[in-house]
């Protein structure tokens, strides 16, 4: 198969988007439009997946042709020419982009299928799939683009789709606010990213990753101990560090790391498939993808790597503690996502980019599964998201329970499931951190793993075990957004718990298989000698030795590591089971109300005070600065006053000058005489001086 077909991976979702967005114009039959959307929207994504799979197989069998530039995708050659600035519209087909394409189209396709069932009663069914297809296209552009600019276009594109989908039920103001928050917080990161791109352009003279002449940024950085620019000069390490940190700021925003994570929990306001696809499986991992893509740059800057690792660990730990006290089922998963992203960043920070991607992939599977399972629960509970009002659902929703338990054990790191392998790989790399702080990173990672296991099993217990805390048949219908009679996918039913339709369940089964088995497949004991993903990704990922950094010796033997993390995971699971089992006995199942919760719980519930802090600094402080400082001080008193002053003085002068123009000839004659007398006096003075 010709690699040219790889273009279709990118263009098919765009076609789907174009169809969905315009179908309303020429298909007047709404039922027909909906049927066509049902076929086309998931169809294009799955077709993309098939092509990506074929390309990957083809690619795997070719003898190490690392990069395939696709000249045919150039809309213009170059795409943008701006003085000396040239950018081509090229795709890069390399292991990293292929793996990510597979994840995006694969998980994305499954979630599309799931959404068909989930959104089937929504009034804006086609609009939903319009956004979804556009998102897939933008995400693919992000991972397939062969330069920073294309990546940035995709980066912003997924941000827009995220905004549109978070506030999908925009008639509810809270949803619209959540969309705004996500978009605005992301702008901070995007500013860093764009500054990073500009710095790359000014220091490297190119923004392409790879070029046929081997003059792409990544190829220029592919020298041991030094980075060159296009003219052959050496780029100083300080500049590399600056660029890496700027790029990292972008990654922090998109991947919801400290301090820019606050938007992700609010982003759960969107429909559950959105949370699954965008805010768990794909978009939020864009930061990790970007770091991995730029691994050739990062390995040259130990400082930047260090920052990445510690921000990752701090995020992982803090988000895990926040997840402990959430009562909204989706919020738990949101904090869990942040925490897992922290793991991925930690992996990147210790130079183990391929295991970061490994965790991206496994996380996409089990977190999408968790979200979709939670969506099924919410769907069955008629829109109820509060775990305090659930319980005992195992009997009513056995299939959902089964896939959820697999996902939970996988994310908790239960031995031999996917999450176990990827998380252990990260912990192993962290323990051998090149900077010698491996023990700390490892310990932090382990504690977080314990917390992860605990809060995930807490979620399972509160949702599926213990007795019911609702009355079947008297469930309240929870409206999302408008209270339109057509309703949404989450408000159907007559107050009864009801199982989800098949289109919603089949994707869950497939994801469950992947969440259970993919880790083994790609892990160290997998087929073909193990570490399949590592080996596949190797050409796209820079080794640490490129920057002159070397991992430390093992902290313990691999088997001991596996045993320890298994033990930790099982301990967390058991503790949660015991705690919530006993609470069930004592009747203290419900969390204490917010008012009489302990200070620690309140602290955790309030996101460690981040939201309050940002509120104080940016919203209140910004408002104050804008009102007092800028509006009154600068605008009213300075700019306006200056403008008014100029206008007034001009007006005054004109007023005076206007009186000169009397229109009376005699006055003009007088002025003429003034001139004449002046001349004569001047002449006299001149003569007298001689």
């Amino acid at each position, binding site marked *: 198969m010709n690699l040219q077909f790889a273009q279709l991976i990118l263009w098919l979702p765009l076609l789907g988007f174009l169809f969905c967005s315009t179908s309303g114009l020429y298909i007047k039959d709404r039922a027909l439009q909906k049927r066509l959307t049902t076929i086309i929207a998931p169809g294009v994504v799955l077709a993309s997946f098939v092509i990506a799979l074929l390309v990957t197989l083809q690619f795997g069998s070719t003898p190490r042709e690392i990069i395939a530039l696709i000249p045919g995708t150039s809309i213009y050659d170059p795409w943008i020419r701006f003085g000396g600035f040239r950018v081509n519209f090229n795709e890069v087909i390399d292991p990293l982009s292929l793996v990510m394409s597979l994840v995006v189209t694969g998980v994305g396709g499954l979630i599309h299928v799931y959404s068909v069932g989930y959104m089937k009663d929504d009034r804006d069914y086609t609009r939903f799939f319009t956004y979804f297809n556009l998102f897939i296209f933008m995400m693919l552009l992000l991972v397939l683009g062969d330069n920073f600019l294309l990546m940035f276009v995709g980066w912003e594109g997924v941000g827009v789709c995220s905004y549109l989908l978070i506030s999908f039920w925009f008639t509810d103001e809270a949803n619209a606010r959540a969309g705004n928050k996500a978009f605005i917080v992301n702008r901070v990161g995007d500013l860093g990213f764009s500054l990073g791109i500009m710095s790359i352009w000014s220091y490297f003279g190119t923004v392409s990753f790879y070029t046929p002449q081997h003059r792409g940024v990544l190829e220029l950085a592919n020298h041991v101990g030094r980075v060159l620019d296009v003219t052959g000069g050496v780029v100083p390490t300080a500049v590399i560090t600056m660029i890496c940190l700027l790029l990292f700021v972008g990654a922090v925003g998109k991947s919801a790391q400290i301090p820019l994570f606050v938007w992700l929990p609010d982003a759960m306001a969107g429909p559950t498939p959105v949370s699954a696809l965008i805010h768990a499986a794909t978009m939020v991992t864009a930061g990790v993808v970007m770091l991995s893509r730029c691994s050739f740059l990062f390995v040259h800057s130990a400082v930047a790597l260090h920052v990445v690792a510690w921000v990752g660990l701090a995020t992982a730990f803090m988000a895990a503690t926040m997840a402990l006290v959430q009562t909204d089922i989706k919020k738990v998963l949101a904090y869990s996502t942040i925490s897992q992203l922290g793991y991925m960043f930690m992996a990147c920070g210790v130079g183990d980019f391929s295991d970061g991607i490994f965790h991206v992939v496994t996380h996409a599977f089990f977190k999408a599964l968790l979200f979709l399972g939670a969506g099924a629960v919410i769907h069955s509970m008629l829109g109820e998201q509060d775990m305090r009002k659930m319980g005992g659902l195992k009997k009513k929703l056995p299939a959902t329970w089964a896939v959820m338990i697999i996902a939970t054990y996988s994310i908790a790191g239960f031995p031999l499931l996917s999450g176990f392998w990827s998380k252990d790989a990260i912990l192993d790399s962290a323990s051998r951190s090149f900077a010698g702080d491996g023990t700390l990173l490892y310990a932090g990672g382990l504690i977080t793993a314990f917390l992860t296991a605990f809060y995930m099993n807490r979620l399972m217990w509160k949702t599926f075990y213990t007795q019911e805390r609702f009355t079947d048949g008297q469930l309240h219908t929870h409206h999302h957004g408008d209270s339109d009679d057509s309703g949404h996918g989450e408000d159907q039913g007559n107050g009864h718990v009801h199982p989800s339709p098949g289109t919603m369940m089949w994707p869950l089964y497939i994801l469950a298989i992947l969440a259970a088995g993919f880790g083994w497949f790609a892990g160290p004991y997998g087929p073909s000698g193990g570490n399949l993903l590592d080996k596949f990704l190797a050409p796209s990922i820079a080794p640490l030795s490129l920057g002159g950094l070397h991992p430390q010796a093992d902290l313990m033997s691999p088997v001991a590591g596996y045993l320890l993390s298994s033990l930790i995971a099982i301990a967390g699971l058991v503790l949660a089971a015991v705690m919530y089992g006993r609470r069930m006995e004592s009747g203290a199942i419900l969390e204490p109300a917010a008012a009489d919760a302990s200070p620690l719980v309140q602290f955790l519930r309030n996101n460690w005070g981040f939201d309050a802090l940002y509120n104080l600094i940016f919203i209140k402080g910004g408002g104050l600065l804008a009102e007092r400082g800028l509006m009154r001080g600068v605008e009213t008193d300075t700019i306006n006053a200056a403008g008014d002053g100029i206008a007034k003085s001009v007006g005054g002068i004109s007023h005076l000058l206007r009186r000169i123009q009397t229109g*009376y000839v*005699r*006055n003009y004659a*007088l002025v003429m*005489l*003034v001139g*004449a*007398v002046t001349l*004569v*006096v001047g002449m*006299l003075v001149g*003569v007298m001086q001689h």
Partner: protein
Amino acid sequence: MPALILFWILAIVCIGAALTMVTAANPVRSALSLVVCFLALAVYYVTLSAQFIGAVQVVVYAGAVMVLFLFVIMLLNLGAPVTSSTKGSNQNTAAVALGAILLLVLFISGIFFEIPGKAVSPATAQAQGTVKAVGLTLYNPHLPWLFPFEATSLLLLVAVVGAIVMTRRQV
């Protein structure tokens, strides 16, 4: 000495007539005062032994030009005095002030500066102002006056035509 007395008498007449011309509200009075002034100047020209110019002054200025003025005044029936201006007193003050400065400057330059060159004898000067002398100078092809003089006739022709065209009732 008689010449000096004559100068002063004429100066008083001339300046007095000029002032009357300026201050008179009635244009007819102004015109007649101006005629007096012009006649006094004609006498000056004669005393300065510029007989031809003196005659021309009487004929052209005191005669033709002033008759034209009076003619227009009568024609347009402007004999009634124009009410003196109420506004524009600033203008008048400024005009007088500027006039004073101008006069001062002209006095300074006219009196306190030695006029370069040397005065010729009255006998020589006498010969310069006769009709014959003026004619010989004016029509001498070796002097630069002939062509401008001929051009002046064209100017006068144009002025006559222009005046007629402008004042015709139907254009």
